[in-house]
């Protein structure tokens, strides 16, 4: 499998670290909604087909990526920087 990093270009799978399902949204830190937290931590759609997932280019630019990959064929149809990282990240003052 080769992942095309938006920053580094096409790189071997061995350079990347898997970080799991990217479709989950974490509840607000102050949330006391137990079911929302349970669902975020434990419940997965686990699709057989298109899957949006986090990868970190740990052996390269170290950016977090959102990869859209087919879990039946391993074909990758999209790679972008994860929100709040990469080009979309605001500069700290």
């Amino acid at each position, binding site marked *: *499998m080769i992942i095309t990093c938006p920053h580094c270009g096409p790189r*071997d*799978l*061995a350079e990347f670290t*898997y970080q*799991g*399902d990217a479709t989950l949204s974490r509840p607000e830190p102050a949330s006391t909604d*137990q*079911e929302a937290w*349970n*669902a975020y*931590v*434990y*419940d*997965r*759609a*686990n*699709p*057989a087909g298109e*899957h949006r*997932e986090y990868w970190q280019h740990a052996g390269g630019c170290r950016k977090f990526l959102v990869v859209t*990959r087919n*879990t*039946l*064929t*391993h074909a990758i149809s999209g790679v972008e920087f994860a929100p709040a990282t990469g080009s979309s990240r605001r500069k700290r003052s």
Partner: protein
Amino acid sequence: MAEYSAWQVLRNAVTGNTGWKPAWRKPEPKPQYDVVIIGGGGHGLSTAYYLAANHGLTNVAVCEKGWLGSGNIGRNTTIVRSNYLLEGNTPFYEHSMKLWENLSHELNYNVMFSQRGIINLCHTPAQMDDAARRGNAMQLMGADSRMVMPDELARRIPGLDLSANARFPVLGGLEQPRAGTARHDAVAWGYARGADRRGVDILENCEVTGFLRDGDRVTGVMTSRGEIRAKKVAVCVAGSTGAVMKLAGIDTLPIESHVLQAFVTEALKPMVDTVVTFGGGHLYLSQSDKGGLVFGGDIDGYNTYAQRGNLPIVEDVMSEAVALFPAAAKVRLLRSWGGIMDMSMDGSPIITTGPLPGMYLNCGWCYGGFKATPASGWCFAHTIAKNEPHPLNAAYSLDRFHRGYVIDEKGQGATPWKH
């Protein structure tokens, strides 16, 4: 029941081998059963066997989308052990071990269970302490264990690299002498034959395409061979759990599907007569009766339903095998393959009633399902027949995640690709 015996072998030898019958029938599906089991793998077949043998339920069908033994029961590295640490796990796996010890007799089918022992190697003082703790916990819960030191390892496993300048020098290990290996296909065939002889219909090439419902209640299955009604429907489909449960409207589960690769080398002369695991990484290795080294390592580490793996893990596993057995560097790899694991969020399985009325669920075996095959079926059959779990599988509930009772043997948290 046509028994397999030395007498039958002799009798057939002089009568042209005309006395053998197929090990199981190829029946047509009936319109209705008491229990339909989805999945004709090891766990599904052992569930069917124990439903008939222990609970007198013989109006049972097993729906298998391919052929028997086409899934993980025929893809694993055949290791049987009960060397767990936690209270939810060890009694269950030890029960499985006891069933293994009598399985060939119980089934009248040689599953070639070989109690050659398993040795988990330790490479740091902390690992030695941890192994001693686990060994003590095993003994407290009725399993067997002992520590082994390098001098004994040198005597018993001559090819092992025990040199002090190894990258991860071996300090010792934890052995479970009663652990071992079994002929994995024979386990599926033996349970299939045993269930079939008691009246269970094994329906191959019968893919479940949907569930029959009466409100919330599950009342049967739609299959590629027609509708089958059932009082109880048991789902036992390992890596396909997510896909099958979606047919019943269950869109999320504490499960991810991942691929695990396994490898076998060309046949060698006897080299290692036990199961060895590497503590400097993750490798488990044994030698088959044909002589091939059979081994595996970590899962590939990303969600997949493709039954094939990627090369970085191949390289990783090979380097670990060579680290343990330097002589293996000259050995050619014969085959490698992949199987889809139902990785649960705490690394422990689920055997439970529900989640819908009329439904029963058995999944989450991660990559430790083979050794559990007898106890999984034994407990699942109890759960189905009595509508409540047996004390041995009571902890393997589906709601334990939301209730905070996870059984996290590795202490890894909700990251299924790391269990």
